[in-house]
């Protein structure tokens, strides 16, 4: 089958690009090796880590200072419209994102620090640090509640670190309600249990007792409060407990990330796009400045795909779109595009793992022009009919900059338009 556009990669960038093309009436195929970073990340939309001020203003400065930055290639309009399209997709899935692109939020993490983000799912909204009870302010304290059985969230640690930040926080472990026997409580299996009304009601009763005892005004819980019906689950738990409830992202696998992916998936299918997961695009065929075909491997069989245009949204090193060998050679894994990367292996890493500036190797990616078309070392377009989006782009470290979903949404949405 011939497609108008094939998108390689099914993270936020790839899905938004595919949605844009499909909504414009094109025949679209989304090909990916597996799920994208959605399943690992927080399920929020981080735009730029500049504390709780205006992220769009911050992005405008980034654009002015760094013309090669993916935000600069996308342009401020795409930053806004990409974020809004993501928000609309979630909204129509009954899982709204809340917040303003003009003001960042800070929300608690599973360690008990605050992280900067911009839009959060409604299930996390009550975690806005500006509203959390502080020590000595007279309001009912915050309760962090979880389960011993879940290895990816520890209330005492979260509460203790929040206390060092001046919040009035306490911790409690809940009793696991009766359920069909499960040996392994992953975030996802627990989220499925929360979709069951009886399980949810039992937790609600326990929370109510705790609230009556401790006069808690808010309760932070691991982000496992339902997979299919999270908005409803949180609302039910709030009514039962008599306090505001918010989710805190856990170690991966990310339940809020899966919800986000599902909202995008539903939107793309609705727009007529096709999704094929489990296809690892490993090589391509070009003619002059046009990419003619790509080849994917699935179940030990190579498959050839044709389209008029392609979007590369395979992620960076974490996503597997960029790979290094033991001799220090970096390759772009799907199309074999040239990469912009630090010169020598000796320059790849900072001495400290958590160094503020990050590790130069993770800025490796494909250089692109304002149309997101891939560039070679001397700045010539490699393929006219290819757009690159998301973490596969060179020139930024989306994790360090606190821009992981923002860069994906902006460049992905733009790649679906150019």
């Amino acid at each position, binding site marked *: 089958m011939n497609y108008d556009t094939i998108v390689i990669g099914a993270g936020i960038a790839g899905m938004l690009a595919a949605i844009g093309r499909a909504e414009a009436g094109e025949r679209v195929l989304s090909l990916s090796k597996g799920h994208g970073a959605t399943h690992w990340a927080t399920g929020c939309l981080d735009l730029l880590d500049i504390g709780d001020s205006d992220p769009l203003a911050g992005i405008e400065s980034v654009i002015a200072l760094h013309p090669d930055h993916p935000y600069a290639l996308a342009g401020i309009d795409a930053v806004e419209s990409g974020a809004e399209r993501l928000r609309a997709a979630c909204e129509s899935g009954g899982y709204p994102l809340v917040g303003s692109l003009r003001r960042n939020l800070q929300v608690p993490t599973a360690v008990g620090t605050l992280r900067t983000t911009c839009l959060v799912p409604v299930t996390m909204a009550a975690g806005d640090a500006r509203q959390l009870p502080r020590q000595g302010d007279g309001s009912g304290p915050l309760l962090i509640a979880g389960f011993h059985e879940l290895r990816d969230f*520890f209330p005492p640690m979260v509460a203790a670190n929040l206390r060092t930040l001046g919040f009035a926080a306490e911790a409690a472990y809940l009793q696991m309600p009766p359920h069909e026997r499960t040996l392994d409580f992953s975030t996802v299996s627990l989220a499925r249990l929360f979709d069951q009304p009886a399980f949810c009601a039992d937790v609600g009763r326990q929370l109510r007792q705790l609230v009556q005892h401790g006069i808690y005004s808010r309760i932070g819980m691991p982000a496992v409060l339902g997979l299919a019906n999270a908005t409803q689950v949180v609302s039910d738990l709030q009514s039962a407990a008599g306090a505001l409830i918010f989710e805190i992202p*856990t170690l991966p696998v990310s339940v809020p990330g899966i919800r986000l992916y599902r909202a995008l998936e539903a939107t793309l299918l609705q727009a007529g796009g096709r999704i094929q997961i489990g296809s690892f695009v490993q090589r391509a065929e070009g003619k002059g400045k046009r990419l003619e075909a790509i080849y994917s491997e699935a179940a030990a069989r190579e498959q050839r795909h044709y389209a008029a245009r392609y979007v590369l949204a395979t992620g960076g090193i974490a996503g597997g779109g960029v790979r290094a060998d033991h001799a220090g050679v970096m390759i772009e894994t799907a199309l074999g595009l040239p990469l912009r990367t630090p010169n020598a292996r000796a320059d790849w890493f900072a001495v400290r793992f*958590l160094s503020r500036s990050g590790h130069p190797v993770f800025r490796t990616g494909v250089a692109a022009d304002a149309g997101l078309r891939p560039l070679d070392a001397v700045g010539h377009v490699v393929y006219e009919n290819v757009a690159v989006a998301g973490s596969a782009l060179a020139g930024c470290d989306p994790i360090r900059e606190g821009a992981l979903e923002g860069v994906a949404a902006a460049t992905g949405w733009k790649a679906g338009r150019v």
Partner: protein
Amino acid sequence: MQTISTDVLVIGGGATGLGCVRDLAMRGMRAILVEKGDLTNGTTGRYHGLLHSGGRYVTKDPQSATECAHENAILRRIMPHCLEDTSGFFVITPWDDPSYGDIFAANCRKTEVPVQEISVAEMLRREPALNPQISRVFEVPDGSADSFLAAHTNALSARTYGAQILTYHRVVELIRTGDHVVAAVVEDLRTSERIYVECGFILNTAGAWAGQIAALAGVKVTVVPGKGTMVAMSHRMVNTVINRCKLPADGDIIVPVHTVAVIGTTDIHVPDPDVYGIEPHEVQLMLEEGEKLVPGFTQHRALRAWAGVRPLYKDQDVANDRDISRTYKLLDHQQRDGVDGIISMVGGKWTTYRLMAKDAVDTIAQRLGNTRACRTADEPMPVPDFEHRSGNHAGVGAEKLYWLGKPLAAVEEEHAYGDLICECELVSRARIHAAIASGASNLDDIRRDVRMGMGPCQGGWCIYRTTALLYEQRAQAAENASADRPAFDIEHANAAMLHFLQERWKGLTPVLWGDQLRQARLDELIYIHVLGAHRLISHAEQGGGLVTEER
């Protein structure tokens, strides 16, 4: 300053020191061991884990070979739970001198190292991944040893016999009355409190740091810290120890250790045992040499690289550090330097630690008028608590070799699936709790006890989980006020997490490419994007006295 008194103060909590303190206690002497970090913090915790048959030394260092051969048999008897009876092979590859085979076999016989030539076909049947181009194979009783577990085993036994072991205590001063060392001042690194230790004798077993200790007594001991770099690969591509059949050189041995295979080593003189790095070319060389033994070696995932410093004792001029004898040396400073009350045990290797302890303790016993015989060659060792649940030790499962199925069987038996804190190494919550209860102060201590964080993900999930468990358990202990340890609060937990993340990073950077580089980026996603752990740095810098010093 508190004053305590003892018969013998042992300095250094590696294999040798722990062997000594156990032997001393078994002979009824009062003994205290001090170690500036955790047990096995030095070279004992940083070697490849080879139980030597002696084969590596038969030509250049025959005395050492014979010592290894004898001790090998003894250790198998007294501490089988610390050993894996893998067997070992010396193979002649196309890059090796074929005439060395006969010399090797003859020298094995001369040095009492059991040896048997087997056919190449038989070798390839046992190790199908080996290079089929090998021309001759000799089998020797090499094995794989868990030096962490062995250290804890010795410590447990020593304590049972009444010895005292103080970790995170550093000797800051040795006190002399004339030509006699009579006491030491040691500092508790966690509280900065100092203790005055009056002692009849001081036994310096500080390994690569022995020169620094001797200097405190005004005695010169030249220990050459010989850096050996090793790389752990993610698979046991061999289940037996594979040596190149040639004179020992860089990257010529692969040792299967638990879930991984370790290739070693280099031998580079470093001026300071606390300051050394791992150069990319060392790792590259190791991989290339590995490729000669196991084709495709470089395609396996390298998990981490680390280095240990051999405590080679230099008593004469030798040009090459590899030519310094690997045998040990007892330095009687009364005879050698006219300073009484202190002896140093230097050089040697893990396999001969028990013999070294026996010799050192024999000398001290004679001086102190103790006539009880050494029993360490006969008495079997106890199994530490945290190890009981792992299923690794002898007696669980009939298989001779380590395989992940053994801890898995234990996990299944206890229905502990949902309670695996470290999934790579199948470490359950109960084992982490036991390690913390048995005195582990930070995550690195826990890692050495139960292998938490040593698998392919290098701690991505378990560092966070273990930090939280450490906090919960220690904070609770502090609340119960039964703790004889310093108070433990969230700042200590945060510092422990940051310290461990950095320690892992040091071991990872030399081997980051392919999947392991991808894993490192995922760990960044977890610790920076999801957890915001980098925001702990500022307050951790003011807290956290429990982490070891930065190297």
